[in-house]
């Protein structure tokens, strides 16, 4: 593993170790790539696509998710371009109706919306759906699976019905003393709607059709 790989990110020569992702290499070199679903303690997930960048290799350019794309010698990365910016803007606009709290965003999502000029209300009137206050970034689920190892929270449903629930039999045993997902949730939903003893959105609710 002694080899280093040299690639170019935003015109800057960057050295990286084999097996690193573009996102890791960039951050190590002090180049910021925004991401919603990435966390250094967890396996790359690739769900938010905010970390999309342009990757050029052998004269061909494609859009890749930098959180999962492995570094290669000679790779040229552009973290900002009209194409990349448009993706980030549209992704934020698309997810906002599902992620807002009382019509507004908070934290990183808010900052990103401002930076990329996203109109977070663009699709709200059209969809007329109630916000679930969740981007489905999966940080809570993966934190519980990969870091805690408790598997007390997970996804149910598919497609546009996908959402996160607690599994009460497990959650009632481990969550009171952990609450790791409360802190990691980027919209604050979990902390607001559940405490260590009450789980506001459970598999029972899902099965009963209340979610």
């Amino acid at each position, binding site marked *: 593993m002694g080899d280093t790989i040299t690639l170019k990110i935003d015109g800057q020569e960057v050295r990286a170790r084999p097996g690193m992702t573009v996102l890791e290499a960039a951050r190590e070199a002090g180049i910021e790539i925004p991401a919603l679903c990435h966390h250094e303690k967890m396996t*790359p997930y690739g769900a938010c696509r905010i970390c999309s960048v342009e990757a050029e290799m052998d004269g061909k350019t494609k859009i890749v998710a930098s959180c999962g794309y492995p570094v290669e010698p000679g790779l040229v990365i552009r973290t900002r371009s009209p194409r990349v910016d448009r993706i980030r803007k549209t992704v934020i606009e698309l997810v906002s109706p599902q992620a807002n709290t009382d019509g507004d965003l908070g934290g990183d999502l808010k900052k990103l919306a401002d930076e990329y000029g996203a109109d977070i209300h663009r699709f709200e009137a059209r969809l007329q759906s109630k916000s679930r206050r969740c981007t*489905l970034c999966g940080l809570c689920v993966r934190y519980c699976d990969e870091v805690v190892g408790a598997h007390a929270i997970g996804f149910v449903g*598919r497609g*546009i019905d*996908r959402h996160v629930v607690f599994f009460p039999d497990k959650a009632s045993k481990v969550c009171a003393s952990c609450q790791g997902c409360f802190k990691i949730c980027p919209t604050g939903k979990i902390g607001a709607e559940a405490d260590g003893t009450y789980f506001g959105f459970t598999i029972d609710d899902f099965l009963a059709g209340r979610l």
Partner: protein
Amino acid sequence: MQVRKQARRINSTAELEALRKSILDARDPKRSIIALCVGTGCLAYGCMDILGAFKREVAVQGLQDTVEIRATGCPGFCERGTLLTVYPQGIFYQRVKMEDVPEIISETIVKGKVIKRLLYVDPNTGEQHTREADVPFYKKQQRLLLGSNSRIDPTSIEDYLAIGGYAALAKAISQMKPEQIIEEIKRSGLRGRGGGGFPAGKKWEETRNAHGHRKYAIVNCDEGDPGAYMDRSLTEGNPHAVLEGLLIGAYAIGASEGFIYVRQEYPLACENLNIAIGQAREHGLLGDNILGSGFSFTVKVHRGAGAFVSGESSAIMSAIEGKVGEPRMKYVHTAVSGIKGQPSNLNNVETWANVPLIINKGADWFRSIGTEGSKGTKIFSLVGKVNNTGLVEIPMGMTLREIIYGIGGGILKGKRFKGVQTGGPSGGILPEQCLDTPVDFDELAKLGSMMGSGGMVVMDEDTCMVDVARYFVDFLCEESCGKCIPCREGLRVLRQILTDICEGRGKPEDIALIQEIAEVMADASLCALGTTAANPVLTTLRYFGDEYEAHIKEKRCPAKFCKNLTSYYIDPDKCSACLICLRNCPASAIVGDKGIVHWIDQGKCTKCGICFEVCPERFSAVVRISGEPTPPPPPPGTKVKREG
């Protein structure tokens, strides 16, 4: 199913050929065979009852030695089921019913007479055809893969051996090095039949060259495109062919373990595969030291849990690992890092089934069929508003027109063709001006559609293209895994925009909005489901843009299909007061009486269209109106002008 003797393990190629010879020697080529389809299509027609009736009739007449009743897989012309072929003459009977059974035995089997009533009559020419090969539906096909279905009982390894089964496996492992096999497959030009069209040999090579302590070979039988069932029929009708292809591939790439991922909805495919696996194992064609070559391979059937997205390669591997079947990032190919991080080669059922043919007949033979970039044949499931529906296997390069008109017999009820959907929810809808396109991977992609796994849905003038786009988007809203934002939320918004357009709330700026969202979905989605999800919308916009315009600007549905933009009206000059529509209207919205012109109360009408369907053709008094106001009803009590 016949009761089998305990099979003897075959330890070498010579023993395999000896067994084949003994099976063939025991068969009288002149003996009559009634090959009855018991595939899923004919099962729905009640073919199992017919099968039982044939067996009873043969026993009653004491003809067990004269005729064999063979339950076979699907010959493809499902619309005409129950289907059967009488060998050795090759007489093809269609729409066979229980009551036809005694006559088939006494007339055709005993006296050798053809029963004219059961023959296929070409609706276009009125011509009657006795032999399957002469029926226009079959005549223009080249059935290299499907052709075997009606010749064998899929639960009999002896039947498969009798048609030359496992000879390709024997040749591959006794005469060829793995690299030679890969070279042969590469040279043949075989491309993946599951949708992407990736060169199969190149994928095999990548897996062979990848490092791993264990390698996997996998069959993708998660066929999920609406209306498509090619892989189901191959797996049900000829499971040993799929298994043989898999074994050859596994040997070539160095895999010792395999999986056949079968979607939940295909119970018969699972059953027949498991029977085939058991037989192959008993015969020493699976397991340790296959045919004495030192090559060992085991395989398991893995049943899906009912998710369309599980057919995606990384999702299928997650599912096989026991996780939720959803895609993961695969910037490192699954050929290098798939199941449990090990090199895993996945091909679709039809791809695998082609492999024994290529090994037997050679890459040059295979290359001689098809176009420059797409070799061999492709099976399509030809469905929708076409006269002959079913499975068709054609050489690559045949035009869409030849398939739809030559094989399919044209559009139902003489209506006008409007579009053909290829490639399922990832594909596109092509209009009349594209009908002379040769069907191959690259030509279809150039037009914005794709080959896909082989769905081909024909649509006529009554189909609204905006509604079709909405249908596919709606399908994917439920069938996407929902993991990444562009796909999940893009589909959600697209569905809303398309619904608004269909319901008359579309805005002129919606077209640009659709294009913007589609572009981001194509650029940024996690897997191919998301990157291609907007194709049905984009192709309908490209080829049927005027329909979108009509919906948005004139609030008119040109196909008169979209409920909110269409009304039903009874022409008082044509109504003969026959009461048929009045009695059939489920909403009691039709007012009138005997001799009194009927009219529709627009306030009560639910626009179900039943009145339009039931109004006798000679009156055609019920009309659909879109884009203009419905005329006022006639004065109450208006008498009919013509008597019904």
